[in-house]
């Protein structure tokens, strides 16, 4: 049997993000499911697994697209200071709740 690589993602609890766990080799989807279960779920550590054939994944790693050479700092949200606004909103919420 020829083997394919399957990438496995796991979720620890309902609502948690799916996190890349690793990968398994398997001839087909059914065995990949069994192996993913053994490698990333047999100790009860996973609530859900996603098993994806690596060749079904669209990869983007072109630096021209992901790391363009110009300054990108204006695209980052760092300029907005909201700490004081958040504190004021919290204080308001507490005051309203105690009324």
């Amino acid at each position, binding site marked *: *049997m020829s083997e394919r690589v399957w990438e496995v993602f796991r979720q620890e609890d309902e609502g948690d993000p799916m996190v890349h766990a690793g990968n398994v*080799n398997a001839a087909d989807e059914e065995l990949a499911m*069994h192996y993913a279960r*053994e490698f990333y779920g047999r100790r009860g550590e996973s609530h859900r697994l996603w098993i994806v054939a690596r060749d079904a994944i669209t990869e983007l790693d072109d630096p021209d697209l992901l790391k363009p050479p110009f300054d990108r700092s204006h695209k980052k949200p760092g300029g907005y200071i909201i700490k004081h606004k958040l504190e004021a909103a919290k204080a308001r919420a507490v005051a309203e709740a105690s009324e």
Partner: protein
Amino acid sequence: MTASLPELDLEAREALAELLLSVADDEFVIGFWDSEWTGIAPMLEEDVATSSIAQDEIGHAKALYELLAELTDDDPDRIAYGRDAPAFRHAALINHARGDWAFSVARRYLYETADRTRLAALAESSHEPLALLAGKMRREETYHLLHADAWRRRLAEAPGGTRSRFADALRRLWPDAQEVFAPLPREEILVREGMLPQSMDELHGAWQAEVRPVLEPLTGPLPEATPSAGGRERRTADFAWLHGEFTKVAGAEVGALW
């Protein structure tokens, strides 16, 4: 009606003990046979899967030996590791060495299907601790059967030599596979009390009706075969060897605490 321990008379206790021992020994010994694949399975992923399933089976045996020990005022470790080979009561199917991969898959498929039939009955047992444990075991055995069945289909559909080797293994194991349903000593008490809701003979019929149509397209017509009275008492040289292996550490210092 629930038959709790204090209400069981001596005869019923002895009958229940034979039932528990038969299931526990099946799980224990097949677990050790399949663990013989650790490190040499066809690929790394399968190695982990097979080893993990083997470990699950030994886990089921542990739970069953604990039930049995409670019933007979014994020690589960002594039952598992302190008996001589002839005292084991696993079915003749589980006497054979692991053989090649096709042989191990053939045995696991035959055993997992038979075990499912048996566990479905035990989950309805009037002996509540057994019914609860069988219910728990069924959840894990569902996965074991899926895994064995995935391999059955692959080997059955594989080209040439693989397919015929698998068919040969199934034909060779077929008579001994019936013995999972060998009549138990004092089985009539178990059935009368509802501890075993269906007789082994009835369970055997249900199992054959299920597996024959699956296997015969591959193996050709399988012979008429029925369980025999001594189906859980025959021991082989293969098993004597395995017994020596799995009792070696416990036997090195009897009574040692781990």
